[in-house]
């Protein structure tokens, strides 16, 4: 598991009130019962934790340029953002 992924799992675990062991790469945010406020907090924690800006629009999350479906898709997006924004 990548370092980015394990840190994302820790962030989500805290929001979802779970332990990291309960969360797998293919867990979906829906499975983890993250509501809209918890998702906004998760995005904030990811931005703070990785020093990046995540293009996320709470008005219409589907229109964000990020795939929030699962831990794996989120990890992929965050890794891309880190690369892009550190360039």
């Amino acid at each position, binding site marked *: 598991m990548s370092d980015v992924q394990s840190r994302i799992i820790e962030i989500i675990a805290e*929001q979802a009130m779970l332990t990291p062991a309960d969360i797998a790469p293919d867990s979906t945010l829906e499975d983890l019962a993250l509501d809209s*406020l918890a998702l*906004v*907090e998760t*995005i904030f924690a990811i*931005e703070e934790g990785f020093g990046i800006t995540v293009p996320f629009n709470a008005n219409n999350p589907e229109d964000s340029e990020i795939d929030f479906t699962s831990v794996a898709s989120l990890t992929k997006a965050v890794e891309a953002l880190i690369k892009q924004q550190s360039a």
Partner: protein
Amino acid sequence: MKRVVITGQGTVNALGMDVASTLNAMAAGTSGISNLDFENVDRLNIKIGGQIHGFDPDAHFTRQKRGLYDRFTEFGLLAADQAIAQSGLVFEGELAERTGVVMGTAGGGLQTQDENYRAVYEQGKNRVHPFVVPRLMNNAAASHISMVHNLMGPSFAVATACASSNHAMGQAVNLVRAGASPVMIAGGSESMLCFGGIKAWEGLRVMSGDGCRPFCATRNGMVQGEGAAVFVFEEYEHARARGAEILCEISGFAMTSDAGDIVTPNADGAQRAMRQALKNAKLNPDDVGYVNAHGTGTTLNDSVETTAIKRVFGDHAHQLMISSTKSMHGHLIGGTGAVELLACIAALTTGMIAPTIGFTTPDPACDLDYVPNTARDKKIGAAISNAFAFGGLNAVIALRAI
């Protein structure tokens, strides 16, 4: 017009984390004023306040909830929980749909504003927590109380500076009197003890650096406090029908405006508010045994308030017991009237007349009985609670034993 009684009360403040400990502290004439403890306190000139030390919100709220709560909301929620538990009411069905909550606050989520201004201005951060807005809004405490207790009727926040909670409780009382709601939850909550909060007050030069001594010749200003108090206001027949323990009756309420100065107190506005509250309560001046004074400890407030009391009560003014409990819990600004109502209720239910502590030297301009330093044990039939705000907005509540 329906009669309104109180069937529950709750508080957290510098004197105690519930009503019993607060009243015990008042009866003992204990000061809750201590050295302030928060970030950058070393840069303040005023370093004392009625701060709640050792408050552990994690003991009461989950981390998820805390993300949405400013300290003033946490105080309000804890006080409301106590009040509603004492009332024995459970809000379901029609009762839930008709019951609301009105909370007074002057600063709202000032801790949240202070922290986040520090983050973006001082630390140069370009990102704030996503819940800054829902945390800092003035109606946050009222809204969270409504959500926790399923109150779906009229709910709102009232901001009239130092009279906020008296105005808030008055709106709740009037809704019950008018028959709009059988029960209303109301009170006030404030948490201004942070660097920005005190620094702003320092600017006015009305703060004391060494203590709050209302009506004493040595008084030199106000001392801030923090906390909340919340009450259950219930229609009398509704309370009787369910066999509720009734603490006392709210028999009258009045509001006036000085239409004068933005900060200077005004005896005319104050006396009109007291007079109208008595009239509204159908009380004669000599029915009243206790006045919980606004009594801020500033030179001007306390002499002007004394003048106003004399105009309203005439000769009976000298028979009244008057005290400012701000000497013990500090001035909770938008929450102060609510904490002070506890002293009025105690006077009516148990005859404990809370003192004005720190009183050493009589002032010729303040020549009434301020219950100096030591609580008294005297049963009374009626009391009033004064609140006179910056902006010249006055609100007086009249209470009667039942």
